[in-house]
């Protein structure tokens, strides 16, 4: 769907460059305790104006807690929350000037679509004709002008979620929070809505904080991904940083698929380091963290960086094909190594590709520069 440029919002007229760097939200050492459980543990996080930040993490990692703290539905056990430059740690929810989109849409069942979108404007005591104009404009923007008079329950899930988005952007909040907003929609609709939300973000420049447990969604939409694990921030960065430079085993496993081979660091190789593992000793690139010979470490190689064809300068390990499955554009081979561990190799599917059969002896190889050394996983 197309989105026409927005004129609804009297946005802070084309933000000057300096403003883009200013913090919209700042969490300083925020902890939230529920009885014995620490839902959040001393979290520091800054969200810049205009940014699209995604909180990604498994269920129970504290994503909703963080969002609810910013919204003011709960107060932190300790720490400080600053929104748009002012201390909002204990500011009542209705004075924070935020918007929020829920997974269950949370549209008022007793109001029409028009009344639902008009509600936040009425709360702000805007004159009637201005309310009408703004609501109509935003309904046009999401191309749902024809349902203005209907009740939410007469609409499909996707339409309801677009209405609840419209209800947010109509009053131009400083920040829009979204807690798994597409969780209730089916796959096709979800992908369509992801692009639409991204488009709205690009056009309107509203800061958005988005929660999901779906890595693809996070990779698709975000300027920056904040990966949460057990109430802490595991790692944050641009999508490609998280994908190509995971700092921990958790990050590597949560985003994308990964082959992880445990071993002991030894001297040798081009970078001066190699890893001795149960299936061989492999040269590794320089590590991002402090290592010395004799330390335990993990070798990460993404399946799509591996081949069965070999070539010059490729490190490889021998094994036997366990299974080989076709996933449309790519083929995924499961290679059983001599220590019975499995390595996944993913290759592009081409017409002249030699067919791998179960039981074939192969060598799974990768360019050493595409491997990555990680600290061994520490239990949380």
């Amino acid at each position, binding site marked *: 769907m197309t989105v026409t440029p927005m004129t609804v919002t009297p946005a802070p007229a084309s933000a000057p460059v300096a403003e883009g760097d200013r913090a919209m939200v700042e969490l300083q050492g925020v902890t939230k305790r529920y009885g014995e459980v620490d839902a959040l543990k001393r979290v520091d996080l800054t969200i810049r104006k205009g940014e699209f930040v995604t909180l990604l993490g498994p269920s129970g990692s504290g994503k909703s807690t963080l969002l609810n703290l910013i*919204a*003011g*539905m709960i107060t932190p056990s300790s720490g400080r929350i600053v929104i748009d430059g002012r201390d909002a740690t204990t500011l*009542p*929810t*209705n*004075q*924070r*000037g*935020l*918007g*929020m989109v*829920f997974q*269950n849409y*949370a549209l*008022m*069942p*007793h109001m029409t679509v028009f009344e639902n979108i008009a*509600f*936040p404007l009425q*709360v*702000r005591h805007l004159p009637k004709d201005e309310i009408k104009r703004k609501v109509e404009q935003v309904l046009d923007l999401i191309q749902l002008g024809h349902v203005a008079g209907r009740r939410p*329950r007469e609409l499909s899930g996707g339409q309801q979620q677009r209405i609840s988005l419209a*209800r947010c952007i109509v*009053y131009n909040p400083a920040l829009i*929070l979204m807690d798994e907003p597409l969780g209730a929609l089916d796959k096709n609709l979800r992908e369509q809505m992801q692009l639409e939300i991204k488009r709205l973000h690009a056009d309107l420049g509203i800061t958005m904080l988005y929660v999901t447990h779906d890595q693809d969604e996070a990779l698709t939409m975000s300027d920056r991904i904040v990966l949460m694990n057990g109430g802490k921030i595991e790692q944050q960065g641009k999508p490609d940083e998280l994908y190509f430079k995971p700092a921990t085993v958790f990050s590597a496993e949560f985003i994308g698929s990964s082959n992880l081979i445990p071993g002991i660091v030894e001297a040798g190789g081009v970078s001066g380091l190699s890893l001795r593992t149960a299936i061989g000793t492999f040269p590794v690139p320089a590590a991002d963290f402090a290592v010395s010979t004799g330390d335990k470490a993990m070798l990460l190689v993404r399946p799509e960086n591996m081949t069965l064809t070999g070539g010059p300068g490729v490190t490889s390990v021998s094994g036997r094909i366990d299974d080989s499955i076709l996933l449309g554009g790519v083929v995924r081979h499961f290679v059983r190594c001599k220590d019975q561990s499995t390595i996944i190799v993913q290759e592009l599917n081409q017409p002249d590709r030699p067919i791998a059969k179960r039981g074939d002896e192969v060598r799974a190889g990768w360019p050493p520069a595409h491997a990555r050394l990680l600290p061994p996983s520490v239990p949380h």
Partner: protein
Amino acid sequence: MNALFGSSRLSRNLIATAAWLCYVFLLLPSLIVIPISFGNPGQIEFPPRQFTLALYQQFFTDQAWWGSMVQSLLVATVTTMLTLVLAVPAAYALVRSQLPRRNLLRGLFMMPMLVPVIVLGLGLYLQFSNWGLLDTTTGLVLSHIMLTTPFIMVSVMSGLHHSDVSLETVASIMGASRPVIFFRVVLPQLKASIAVGALFAFLMSLDEVVVAYFLTGTKAMTLPVKMYSSIRWELTPVLAAVSTLLTLLSLLIALGIIALQRKTEANP
């Protein structure tokens, strides 16, 4: 249940028939007054040997009867409205707030439901006689508010438990204050449970006789009290007409309650 009766259609029909027989048995004494009310104005007789509206004419022209009916309707209406103003916000606060002594407060509001009405009547009589509230409409309304509050609260609280809190949360995030949320988000969703509670309260106040008997004399006398005393002193056949009217009113209100409950079940 199934183990005893099986689940055949026969046993289900038997149970339904038994239930209906019970209803009819319980209803019969009330229903018998209906034919009597259209009969001989001189004396109570069943079955009636003529059909006239004379008893209704008597009722509507006798100031004492007619006046107590108006008084009853007045007391029930005012009681219902004041109870709503008191009980709906109280129920909202009890369900949604994090008040430390919530359960204690809830118990306090529910108390009048547990105290025997006769004890309540006596207590109110003694207290109101000090305050000069005996035989006043004000006194009667105050005591009926006590009696009806728990019923409206129960109805509204169950409505609140079924309504979606995230609607209130989202309204608050959009900038709405507590009162705005209460009037524009909460109340519209509670319409049905408030109406059910209000109809119950109205009905309760309308045929409440024990407390009213304690508290009223000739000035503030309600219809049930008037009926009760006329049974004791004169046993006039007008009673049949009054009873029929009251039954009709109760029936209408009960149907209203059922219709409302159906509607809320259909689209919660």
